[in-house]
């Protein structure tokens, strides 16, 4: 896994961006998914809806607990991972690949600058 184009939030979401595109992919980290344990449901915002950096955009139900998902960046939801409806456990199995949550068109690429790089995130969870 190459994390060069991935940024992280304190709330354990990740955003992957591509060169020459304003559409990013969002999910939760390996650390978050293993802390939550078996995930049984992911509630995501509808396609076309707006998300705002730092605000709640969904919910994760795990066997033992429930957690909010926060938008790492602001934008418009372009696509949600429909596979998660029947197979939410993919988030546990493959948090950075098949277990992605949604794709969003971002409004302000500068927001990515405020997020953590992989090394910084690793350092943060190392202390948790």
């Amino acid at each position: 896994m190459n994390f060069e184009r991935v940024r992280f939030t304190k709330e354990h979401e990740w955003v992957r961006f591509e060169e020459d595109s304003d559409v990013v992919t969002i999910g939760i980290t390996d650390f978050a998914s293993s802390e939550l344990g078996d995930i049984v449901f992911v509630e995501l915002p509808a396609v076309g809806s707006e998300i705002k950096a730092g605000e709640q955009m969904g919910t994760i139900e795990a066997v033992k607990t429930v957690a909010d998902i926060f938008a790492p960046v602001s934008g418009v939801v372009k696509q949600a991972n429909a596979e998660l409806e029947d197979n939410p456990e993919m988030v546990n199995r493959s948090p950075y690949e098949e277990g992605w949550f949604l794709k969003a068109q971002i409004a302000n690429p500068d927001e990515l600058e405020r997020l953590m790089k992989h090394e910084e995130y690793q350092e943060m969870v190392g202390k948790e």
Partner: protein
Amino acid sequence: MRDLKETPFAEVHRALGAKMVGFAGYAMPVAYGSILAEHAAVRERAGLFDVSHMGELVVTGDRAKAFVNEVVTNDTTKLAPGDLQYTVMCREDGTVVDDLLVFVLDEDRVMLVVNAANIEKDLAHIRTFDMSGVEITDRSEHYALIAVQGPRSVEILRSCPAFAPAERQLADTAYYHGFRFVSEGGEILMSRTGYTGELGFEIFVPTPRAVALWKEIMKVGGVHGIEPVGLGARDTLRFEASFCLYGHELDDNTTPLEAGLGWVVKLKKESFRGLASLREEKKRGPRRKLVGFEIEGRRIARQGYVVLGDGDEIGRVTSGGFSPTLRKSLCMALVDRVSAETTTEYRIDVRGKTLPARMTALPFYESRAK
């Protein structure tokens, strides 16, 4: 994990990479990997549980059975050595001190298997009775308790050399019966009981012998697909089978009649603590009752969430989860009995969203063989 007691299996759990949590003062494994995979192992094959945190209180004396009969709501007088019974013990006002298993070891020796978090409270409660001619000893440190549960559990135990002296009893012992036998390292107690709704035994083994026995069961059970199972799946399994869990369906303010445990309250008994109140409650009808709900979708109604009957709060969820076996979001709830009689539409407030709920019979899940 500081200040937590450890069971004899602490090293085993560490080696298996278990995720540990504090539970009732003990460091206990919540899962070794996936709760859902462990849940499935028990429903389909077999699982091995460390439940050594449970308390074992042994009452001895000629009057032991009669004494226990005064403490608990169920009728223990007809129990013979080797019999077990599920029951509760109540206060004078009918509220539940604890739910427990009564295991008659001898005519003059009865073991009470109680919840870990309640050991001290139970002992204090029991000591308020007339103790003349009986003695009660906390044997919780003496016994490690492991449970082997699942359709292949008995087959596995019968293949273990450690249980060779008990081969016949393993095959013949019926649900809610038990036996004891002497193995190397002391006497082992076995009961065909469990908290999963599946076939299985609970094994009370002297602490020094515990780890070797665990390893033997895991080794022999390997070809049968046995898995170590933590408290996470123990909870999802007992929830599907709709067994009460103290601190959820039962607590210091709940009566057994409210919690659907009328079947363990023998109101025809001459006396027991709480009898007068429970007779009265039975006559006028309990204030609340324990019911099951199914919620559409996969949101989970968790303990404490409000149940609405035609828009008004009529109760609270006691336990809830996405049932791995039934693939449904289910919950148990204590609701106002009278309101529930006239309610036409139920909803549950799941973190600010009121989701439609349909009342459904308990237990949610019942195995063909247990």
